[in-house]
């Protein structure tokens, strides 16, 4: 009991300190990404992109009359929920961050949200968590993401099939949270639209031989085989097996199957196969690319655009809310992200701050054409492609 009292007192003290700092000249923003772990190769560029947005705001004179943004990085590990929770705890209690840009992987994002962010009332904007589960999680309106939910991808895939008038498919997915979530959302959307799924079979990554999996898929039948896996793993093995045995000729591919090596190796036989991949194009994307290249960041890197947008959105929402707190950011985030208002591209954050200071309204477009829907997640634009002559050919942007 004594310990608990002590801990409560300590927390209250540090929280008080955090409040004090929040009203000082700097506003700290947590950047919690998996700097170690499975996606450690992606995260440095993501963090750099987020910090690029903060630097842009500082260069434009800071937030709310001269408050400078300061990034505090922490490691989410991508896979270890306990480690991520501890890191987020540290960000809030000892660093006193006003908001969190992150986390990256869906599992740790959910853990941080329920264990740390919601109890402390801290707003979180994730650039890359795509699990459909996060749409329904109890978040007190504090959780947003600039990446589309896989539930959206499931609908897009289902729409593509319906447009092509394909009514019966077999589905195989990589046996993890991503594959399971995506296949569930796809099947729900497809069956609602009147399609039939003959079999929904998982496959393990990293095996040498997928003939048994292909045998089961072939036996169940279907016009098209929907492959929701990884392009250099089991997804490719299943396609190879299906082509070898003549089980399927046409495939529909989820976003994890998008890769140049796949069409280079198997493109001839996959002629006419199709799929969808998250895509962004337009002025915002071009503007971000130019800025990123100047700052030595690879603009094609996965989720760099989303990271920039996440950090920019938090700062702009604070500016719109009139104070550098999570409460202000949470209440105004959807407003700055969506129409109506003056469209804001990357590189125009200074202009956005000015408009907000004068009581105007903005519509943040950003690097990914941000449009937040439902509980505050990106609507997402997908590119529908067809494999023609061993190359990806854009058919449609959805």
């Amino acid at each position, binding site marked *: 009991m004594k310990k608990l009292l002590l801990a409560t007192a300590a927390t209250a003290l540090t929280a008080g300190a955090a409040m004090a700092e929040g009203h000082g000249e700097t506003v700290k923003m947590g950047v919690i990404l998996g700097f170690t772990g499975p996606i450690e190769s992606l995260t440095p560029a993501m963090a750099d992109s987020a910090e690029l947005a903060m630097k842009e705001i500082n260069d434009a004179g800071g937030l709310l009359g001269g408050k400078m943004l300061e990034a505090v990085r922490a490691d989410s590990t991508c896979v270890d929920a306990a480690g991520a929770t501890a890191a987020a705890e540290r960000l809030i209690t000892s660093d006193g961050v006003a908001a969190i840009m992150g986390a990256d992987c869906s599992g740790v994002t959910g853990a941080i949200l329920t264990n740390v962010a919601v109890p402390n009332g801290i707003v979180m904007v994730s650039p890359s968590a795509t699990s459909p589960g996060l749409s329904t999680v109890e978040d007190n309106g504090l959780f947003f993401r600039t990446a589309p939910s896989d539930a959206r991808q499931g609908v897009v895939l289902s729409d593509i099939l319906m447009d092509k008038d394909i009514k019966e498919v077999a589905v195989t997915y990589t046996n993890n949270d991503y594959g399971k979530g995506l296949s569930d959302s796809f099947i729900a959307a497809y069956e609602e639209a009147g399609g039939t799924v003959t079999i929904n079979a998982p496959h393990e990554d990293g095996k040498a031989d997928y003939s*048994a999996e292909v045998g*089961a898929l072939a036996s169940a039948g279907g016009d098209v085989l929907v492959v929701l896996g990884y392009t250099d793993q089991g997804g490719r093995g299943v396609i190879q097996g299906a082509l070898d045995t003549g089980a399927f000729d046409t495939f529909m591919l989820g976003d994890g199957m998008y890769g140049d090596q796949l069409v280079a190796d198997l493109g001839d036989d996959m002629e006419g196969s199709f799929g969808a991949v998250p895509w962004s194009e337009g002025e915002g994307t071009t503007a971000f690319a130019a800025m990123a290249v100047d700052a030595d960041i690879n603009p094609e890197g996965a989720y760099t655009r989303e990271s920039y947008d996440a950090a920019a959105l938090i700062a702009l929402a604070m500016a719109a809310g009139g104070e550098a707190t999570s409460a202000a950011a949470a209440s105004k985030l959807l407003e700055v992200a969506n129409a109506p208002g003056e469209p804001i591209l990357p590189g125009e954050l200074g202009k956005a701050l000015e408009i907000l200071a004068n009581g105007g309204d903005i519509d943040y477009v950003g690097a990914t054409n941000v449009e937040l829907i439902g509980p505050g997640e990106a609507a997402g634009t997908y590119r529908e492609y067809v494999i023609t002559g061993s190359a990806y050919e854009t058919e449609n942007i959805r």
Partner: protein
Amino acid sequence: MDILNTLVLLANFVFVPAIAYGSQLALGALGVTLIYGILRFSNFAHGDTMAFGTMVTVLVTWLLQSWGVSLGPLPTALLALPFGIAVTAALVLWTDRVVYKFYRKQKAKPVILVIVSMGVMFVMNGLVRFIIGPDDQRFADGERFIIGARDFKKMTGLDEGLAIKTSQGLTVVTAVLVVAALFWFLNHTRTGKSMRAYSDNEDLALLSGINPERVVAVTWILVAALATVAGVLYGLDKSFKPFTYFQLLLPIFASAIVGGLGSPLGAIAGGFVIAFSEVTITYAWKKAAGYILPESLAPDGLLQLLAVDYKFAVSFVILVVVLLFKPTGLFKGKSV
């Protein structure tokens, strides 16, 4: 017509893959069984010996390919195979000299040798990953199919296609040749006979003047050859990834034990028993049943006994059942 379609369907998805896989397992199990029969321990390093041999073959294949050497429709790896066997034989002979010989002199119990072979397994495992990396490597070239599924449909006019890959044909032919050569060697040459004598009764063999070190050395060379051939055929048919070779250890041991440890004939039979069980138990019979049964009886379900994920469980179950009820295996090998 429906009967024909059913047969072709089953040939395509059950018989052809199972026969190829069974041949690969049989070659692997022969190596395990030879070591058990002559050196008297279960060699856990066998899967990684296969990986090592395949790795050397892959490297030599790449070298040959870069020189523009090829075998036409056959994979270049066949040319590289002798090099793979030679290097692997050198490695296992060296391992025997620096590791196993010590324990043989001590007359160590088989269980100690099993643990020692596990150590060797980890070292080889690391060596392979260190040299070629843990990723998938592709080295198959030449003609991919003997018959492609689409060509078969066109030729016969049937609804079902039958595909036979070059690697599958090659696997069966090579396996038959290798097994024939091995049996001839064991039964008709002086060295082969001395090996069998040593296996049957070590003391009598020593009394009659058989040089034990020579028998051991020849055994290792044979095992290296069998392991490399099995590994290369598996790699050509599927793909080469060090970790999957490590996983092959279970079905290979299951094959050797089902057939009877120490019995070469049993190893071959065991390989096919395991391969056919794995494939038939995890196959979804819906389509085949749909062809044969009248429409009213056609099944809605998949008719799949076990999800494909549990493929390895099949080897485990067979292994446990055999060890419980017939520990000497089908062909009266030694009990474990």
